[in-house]
């Protein structure tokens, strides 16, 4: 692995007496760096589109909307900004969920999609869109998708703890349940009414074209609650990485900590799946990129992955809008395209080390 050129020595950052964290100065640097990068991507994303702006112009419109022409303000504030923010928030949520899942399973290939949340949410969504359309108002659909995701994830959890919990079993059972549900979804897609199916398909690809400010608020709420709870568990996660036995004998109560962390993971994933559809690769890749900078120190890893996840989805969405314009590629698919090759190179390099 590439050596980080900043010191590996940790310094104590004391906020109050008794309240402080140990962090490396490099962690703080990288966090600041990626925050700036995210800001840049947001500005760039706000600038591109069918009505092209300069980055400077988009900055002006965002900080001082009253000075800009009304039409531009509408384009940026009503269409582009909510979409970008939803993208960023979903990316951050999925990245945190990915960190949690990879750490508690101690498996670098685990991703939040694997525990059945995405498949559950999609299948529920399809049932209400294709089989019984019109039963629920459209704005409630995400809520139902979320409930579906939760139900499926709890089934996976229950099944995997039938004979004593093991993280590997959790993930593998997730794979099994996911493939069953996707067979079900495929059936609905192939035989459902084409009009209903079309809108469902768009959503499957991880599409953000209907983002609104209310979605921004909802996502923000989930990310703040579940994300900060997850961050507060960073010491548990640090220990869980060292192995179940080590964690347990340091006082981490696996029977409580694991379900709680898993719950956070499911909440974050299903919230973002319900808003933006399936963005499979973010939860897998963002933690990996972040780990290159701060290894498995979760105090830094969680915020850093969140920012990187946000960058990835914003990037994927903006590229998807601009690459083959006017054709819009869903952000999820673009992410797979850029993410997968990187990921494969990364993993093969890790294995050699």
């Amino acid at each position, binding site marked *: 692995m590439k050596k980080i050129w900043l010191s590996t020595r940790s310094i104590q950052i004391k906020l109050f007496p008794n309240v402080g964290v140990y962090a490396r100065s490099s962690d703080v640097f990288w966090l600041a760096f990626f925050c700036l990068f995210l800001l840049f991507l947001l500005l760039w994303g706000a600038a591109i589109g069918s009505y092209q702006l300069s980055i400077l112009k988009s900055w002006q419109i965002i900080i001082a909307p009253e000075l800009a022409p009304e039409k531009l303000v509408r384009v940026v504030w009503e269409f582009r900004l909510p979409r970008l923010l939803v993208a960023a928030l979903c990316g951050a949520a999925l990245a945190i969920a990915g960190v949690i899942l990879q750490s508690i399973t101690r498996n670098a290939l685990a991703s939040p999609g694997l525990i059945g949340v995405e498949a559950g949410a999609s299948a529920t969504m399809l049932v209400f869109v294709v089989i019984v359309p019109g039963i629920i108002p459209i704005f409630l659909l995400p809520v139902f998708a979320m409930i579906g995701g939760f139900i499926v994830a709890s089934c996976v959890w229950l099944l995997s703890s039938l004979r004593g919990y093991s993280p590997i079993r959790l993930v593998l059972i997730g794979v099994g349940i996911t493939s069953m549900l996707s067979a079900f979804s495929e059936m609905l897609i192939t035989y459902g009414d084409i009009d209903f199916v079309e809108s469902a398909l768009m959503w499957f690809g991880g599409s953000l074209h209907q983002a609104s400010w209310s979605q921004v608020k909802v996502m923000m709420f989930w990310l703040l609650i579940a994300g900060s709870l997850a961050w507060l568990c960073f010491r548990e996660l640090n220990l869980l990485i060292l192995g179940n*036995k080590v964690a347990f*004998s*340091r*006082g981490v*109560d696996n029977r409580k900590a694991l379900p709680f962390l898993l719950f956070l993971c499911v909440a974050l994933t299903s919230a973002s799946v319900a808003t933006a559809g399936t963005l499979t690769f973010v939860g897998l890749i963002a933690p990996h990129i972040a780990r290159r900078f701060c290894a498995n*120190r979760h105090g830094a890893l969680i915020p850093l992955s969140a920012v990187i996840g946000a960058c990835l989805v914003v990037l994927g969405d903006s590229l998807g809008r601009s690459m083959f314009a006017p054709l819009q590629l869903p952000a999820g698919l673009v992410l797979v395209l850029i993410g997968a090759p990187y990921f494969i190179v990364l993993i093969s390099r890790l294995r050699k080390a």
Partner: protein
Amino acid sequence: MLVIENLNAGYKNKQILKNINLTLPDGGFITLMGANGCGKTTLLHSISGLLKVTKGDVFLNETNLLGLKRKDVAQRLALLPQITTTPSGLTARELIMQGRFPWQNWWKQWSDVDEKAVNDAIEVTNVGDYLDLPLEQLSGGQQQRCWIAMTLAQDTPVLLLDEPTTYLDVAHQVELMNLIASLKSKGKTIIAVLHDLNQAATYSDYLVMMKEGKVFTQGKVKEVFTKENLSSVFGLNAHIITDPYNDTPIALPVVTSPDNLAQTTDLNNRQQMHYA
């Protein structure tokens, strides 16, 4: 004083520990011995709560450990399980600091007490030279020292060590055993599982010999480490002599002379032929 009463434990449909009763003195080096599969590690795990006890109790200074929360147990007992992997991306200090987990919570992140405990642990284990190096760059012996430092930083009166010297070469084993034995002077009670008979006899004060999930015998080293006991616990035929330097018993396995060897193999062959 660690008191174990009527302890039964095991895995699904396989009971391993059967009615263990033990009273272990404070402030000594206690070694659990026995052949493979006799339940030493299982006993260590059930004392620390890692394995659910089906029946019985474990008392530490009259507190029943089995009813306590995980963190409360971890403030009293520190278990170092067998370590097989090296965590990546952590420095030695970051590993050791994680031993403070049971003393921290959401509103008490890092206090001066934590700082002092970590510094003490670093001093005792003498890992100061490589504190800020990544663990991957350390040798096996150095890594094991760091793990012990982490266990010490937990600041518990009792330490449980599961085969702390496995995978180390001889010089590092001795170095590590000296370190562990020196912890007695800090008032710690050390309960360890050791494979090497002579290591156990040299360093321990008190031996617990286990056989088939039960305590076979226990007591001071010189009383328990006898030819008869070794023969019935391990099925080992050995002479016992006294180490002239340490004044501790040592087991020397009986080597069969070539003639005897030939006879036994001959016998074995004949038996096999018979079976065939």
